């Protein structure tokens, strides 16, 4: 075990996978400037600065992936994905299917997302739900340094296109990462805390928020389980349902806007498949249906807070009627 930041974990994953497979290459606006060590280790052909044009960066990755390479593209901030939607959604997501399975698209698109830098809504927009809704893509959004490393490595080895989101509030946090080869499979949630009364389900920066909420709840005698989804698609339905079947209550928490977000999917799933075990409605604590403001205090207010998560859990414990009056 060593303690490293999320940024270092990403670097390690990239370096290890480039060493592991000569087909892996990294492209993006400034990747060669920012990751000199990779350029030195693997040469400029495999670590490429690109022109400022997300569409062709993604398109080049998609074309290359289908014909023998394993590209990783850094598209910087999630809102810039808007320029690459055709390549990611219509090509990478659909051309395997539309070609009757003739092509695979082993590529990873990395983007930063989330509040924390006061840069406003054109740099900060949590778009993971879009890619979960689009067919043929996978979506990873880890919360710990170990998972950033282990899931990025898995994503690079995966035969399908993976959107890999880095919550900027986590980028410089650190955590223990196992020494040696460390792979974390896509599609598996992680239980961050065990509990009996309610399951707090989340991913990325709001996992620590849920952990803090669980502390608040513990002080009030409420035992909260914290589930870190890690992977948005495939979604670990089994882990979600098993936990809620045990606790009977769930709060889903994320920073992304509420309407048609991942929280809606998780709540709907629980309703469909764990109805008999539910003792109260599934509540959501999410960012608002508004763009992200730059002003620091507003930006903080945009992010779900531990107190709000704890309050939702308390309402569930107080009984269904209280919960329904949200």
């Amino acid at each position, binding site marked *: 075990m060593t303690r490293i930041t999320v940024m270092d974990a990403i670097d390690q994953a990239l370096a290890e996978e480039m060493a592991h497979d000569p087909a892996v*290459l990294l492209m993006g606006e400034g990747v060669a400037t920012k990751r000199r060590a990779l350029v030195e280790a693997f040469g400029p052909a495999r670590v490429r600065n690109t022109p400022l044009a997300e569409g062709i960066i993604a*398109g080049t990755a998609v074309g290359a992936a289908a*014909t*023998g390479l394993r590209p990783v593209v850094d598209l910087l901030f999630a809102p810039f994905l808007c320029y690459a939607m055709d390549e990611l959604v*219509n*090509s990478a997501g659909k051309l395997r299917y539309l070609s009757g399975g*003739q092509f*695979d698209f082993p590529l990873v698109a990395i983007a930063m997302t989330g509040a924390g830098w006061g840069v406003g809504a054109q740099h900060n927009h949590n778009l993971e739900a879009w890619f979960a809704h689009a067919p043929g893509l996978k979506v990873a959004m880890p919360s710990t340094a170990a998972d950033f490393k282990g899931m990025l490595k898995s994503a690079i080895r995966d035969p399908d296109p993976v959107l890999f989101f880095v919550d900027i509030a986590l980028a410089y946090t650190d955590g223990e990462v196992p020494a040696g080869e460390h792979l974390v499979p896509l599609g598996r949630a992680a239980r961050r805390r065990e509990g009996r009364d309610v399951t707090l389900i989340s991913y990325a920066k709001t996992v620590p928020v849920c952990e803090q909420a669980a502390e608040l709840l513990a002080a009030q005698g409420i035992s909260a389980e914290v589930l870190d989804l890690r992977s948005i698609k495939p979604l670990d339905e089994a882990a979600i349902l098993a936990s809620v079947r045990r606790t009977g209550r769930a709060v889903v928490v994320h920073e992304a806007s509420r309407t048609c977000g991942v929280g809606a999917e998780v709540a709907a799933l629980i309703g469909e498949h764990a109805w008999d075990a539910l003792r109260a409605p599934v509540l959501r604590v999410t960012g608002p249906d508004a763009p992200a403001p730059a002003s620091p205090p507003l930006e903080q207010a945009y992010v779900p807070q531990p107190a709000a998560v704890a309050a939702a859990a308390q309402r569930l414990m107080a009984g269904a009627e209280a919960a329904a009056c949200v």
Partner: protein
Amino acid sequence: MGIRLYDGRAEELLQAMWLIRAYEERAVALQAEQGVPGTCTAVGQEAAAVGVVSALGADDLILTNHRSSGHLLARGADPGRMLAEVMGRRDGYCKGKSGSLHISAKDLGVVLTSTIVGGELALATGVALSQQMLGRRGVVTCFFGDGAACEGRFHESLNLAALWRLPVLYVCENNQWQAFVHRRETMLADNIAARAAGYGMDTAVVDGNDPEAVRAAALEAVESIRASGRPYFLEARTYRLRGHFEPDDQAYVDPDELAAWRARDPLALLEARLLAAGRIDADALQALRAEAYRRIDAGWRFAVDSPYPATAELTTDVYA
């Protein structure tokens, strides 16, 4: 059926062009008479397709778009599997999942067909990057229309290919139409090659209705790419003689313009030239046409005999 290679004889070119024409006539009839989904036909553009594809080797790759039948057939695609695909049958090149609009045939090197206009431009650079980095010799031929040249991806793709010296042969089939909009309504310039030159690549403009001229230009282009490792831009000036997507009454088309281009039908032009020069005789011509129609007939029988995919196919091939 495998990749078709050409030695450049005019009969070969003419034969391929007739196969495309016969195929399109069948696709039109199937739509009109049997309710088969419509297609974007390449009628009028056979020379551009055959001229370019005949210049390619077995290692070369092709990206195409919604108007792909000429490129596929010239490359040796089986008309039966193409028609089966158009009809959504199991034996289509894409198991019926594509339909006419995104037919790829990996075995023929026809990869990643996208019906998003501009899609092929965005993917071609990646395919070419694979060729470059994996040390493969084949040139990547990217077919697209004058409409695609209006999309931002045109700019992004050409810039990147020139910058990274990617082995892409850009082939713009400037057929004067972008669905229901005339090219004139979309750009001030009359030709697209001039813009391409601005990215730092060699360009050529050729009469897209003359298959021998197109072939000669494409051979030169391919040779230049192989020698220099740099992309090349070839504009074939041609015309979409039928509507955009079947059925289409072309009511919006200027009849004089259409008539002028009909008079330059690429098949008729080539036949007249060959006959005049004594390079072919009328009987051989007749046989060649008949063979094309015969092959399309056989293909059609294959296609109608092919079953529809099982319902379970609805969710296969989504992930690897």
